[in-house]
């Protein structure tokens, strides 16, 4: 499976600031996704990062808050904008295989704490 690297692995940020998280994959992948895992909780899909077009956001997530870039088939960024303590979570990049219903593979995530 693809090797997924995220940077930073963790950060502590002040409220009102923004943080951009990078996701690098060691092979070209069609589908890349960003998930959020709030403390002690399960995973929720934020958006699908589409190469060459705007990301597709899930209900409850908006582009102004979580802008996403996907400049090529191996890289994506997620920005958490105008952060508040409620944004403290683990943010996870994931990729899927090209076959339908192939499992998602995840990076180790970015642990964000907003003070």
């Amino acid at each position, binding site marked *: 499976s693809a090797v997924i690297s995220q940077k930073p692995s963790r950060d502590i940020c002040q409220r009102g600031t923004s943080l951009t998280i990078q996701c690098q994959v060691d092979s070209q992948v069609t*589908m890349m996704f960003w998930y959020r895992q709030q403390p002690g909780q399960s*995973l929720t899909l934020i958006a699908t990062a589409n190469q060459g077009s705007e990301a597709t956001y899930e209900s409850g997530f908006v582009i102004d808050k979580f802008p996403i870039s996907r400049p090529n088939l191996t890289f994506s960024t997620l920005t958490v904008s105008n952060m508040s303590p409620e944004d403290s979570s683990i943010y996870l990049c994931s990729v899927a295989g090209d076959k339908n*219903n192939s*499992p*998602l593979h995840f*990076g180790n995530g970015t642990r964000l704490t907003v003070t």
Partner: protein
Amino acid sequence: GESVGLHLPTLSVQEGDNSIINCAYSNSASDYFIWYKQESGKGPQFIIDIRSNMDKRQGQRVTVLLNKTVKHLSLQIAATQPGDSAVYFCAENGSGGSQGNLIFGKGTKLSVKP
């Protein structure tokens, strides 16, 4: 609405025993199910998956059982080892949407006593 949940939030087992982690799903349209293992400080790691045209699938020391009649999924770990200690999540693909839109259960924490 769609939901995936777990019967047991925590499970403690003796090393060498078998572990069974259960999951209930509510969307009868789901046709693909996955189990993930998440160790502390890491992302979810794929363990095993199963499609709805099967009721059992075996991997190395793990077996997934799917009962579509009662919308139940289980993960069996044989001869549980300390390295199996982690949080386990079930996930389903729901009734449509993007390939990446998995619906995750709340997670079960497995603790293995030496």
